[in-house]
């Protein structure tokens, strides 16, 4: 009788996990960092060459410190952004344009190599992350969750 109960519990747990899995799997939008661009780390912050993309990682191979700008996907029901770098020694920010030409910059929170932003914003504006990258460092992952 006890074994029967145990088997029932195991089956119920399996059904629960199976039903919940698709919900969990759909709760994020990922973007490959190949969409990032490399820019000069100082005025006029123009695009420069030297970005490489291999093993799903965007790397600054310009020979010096440069800025990476990455467009961020935004889904209204997913309020947070996360950008993961290959090195903790940087400080990514999230930039957002606004009505009338104002710009908002969010400094977010930092844990290890990941920067998380929860700006609580309207969805229809353009977002981008800006990360200063030392030569040889890069961006691994961008996510809206």
């Amino acid at each position, binding site marked *: 009788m006890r074994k029967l109960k145990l088997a029932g519990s195991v089956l119920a747990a*399996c059904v629960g996990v199976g*039903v919940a899995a*698709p919900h969990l799997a759909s709760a994020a939008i990922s973007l490959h960092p190949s969409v990032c661009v490399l820019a000069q780390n100082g*005025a006029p912050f123009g695009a420069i060459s030297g970005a490489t993309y291999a093993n799903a990682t965007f790397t600054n191979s310009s020979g010096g410190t440069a800025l990476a700008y990455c467009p961020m996907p935004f889904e209204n029901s997913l309020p947070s952004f996360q950008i993961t770098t290959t090195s903790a020694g940087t400080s990514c920010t999230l930039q957002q344009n606004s009505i009338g*030409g104002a710009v908002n910059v969010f400094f977010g929170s930092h844990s290890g190599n990941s920067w998380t932003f929860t700006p609580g914003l*309207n969805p229809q504006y353009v977002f981008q992350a800006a990360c*200063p990258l030392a030569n040889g460092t890069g961006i691994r992952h961008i996510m809206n969750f």
Partner: protein
Amino acid sequence: MRMTKVMMAATVATVVSAVAVGGYWLGRARTLQPTERGRSEEPAAGLDETEHDSRLAGALGRLEGRMAALEIKQATATAPTAAAPEPAAAPPAPAKNEAPDPAAEEARHLEGEARIQAVLRAEPRDRAWASPTEGNLRATIDTVVSEGGKFAVKDVKCLTSLCEMVLSANAPDDLKYLTDQLSPKITGMGSMELLPPTVGTDGRATVTCRFFRQGYPRPDEGLL
């Protein structure tokens, strides 16, 4: 005996896997969007006719609402002398996948700005934080200027949850890269907002920067 146990374990594993896969597909089917369902399935045979009618009525109601909004917009566009009504409350954010309404967005923006202005007028000053933070902001601008920035601090004021700083420059172009010049150097703040520069009759440009203290909610939260 040993073989029987192995076979029993294998059978149990097979049954558990089958149930888990079945559960997964059941869950997946439940998360399909209506458009996805439409592609792969016929309308549910058991769909209640009353429910179907109420959905149609709901869609019709939404369409009528949008038409009314368009008519109001057209009327206000053709009568520019009519005074725009004051927004009573912040319009709600657009629902998921709904096209943004520029008029509603503008109202939300104005409401957010009004809330910030109210805080700037009424918030008490946390001296322990405000004084050193004003000093830090001035020092940050000095650093940016030493790196090539062409602007100066005209005024800086911190209260408890935010600071407002006004910068001036000889020309608007001198403020073009301000966002990127300032962003990496700001510390202790949750976010900052740079308003569009204004140009005086003498051609000089000024820009207002707001810094929102880390750990404090922004007055315009949800209205950006």
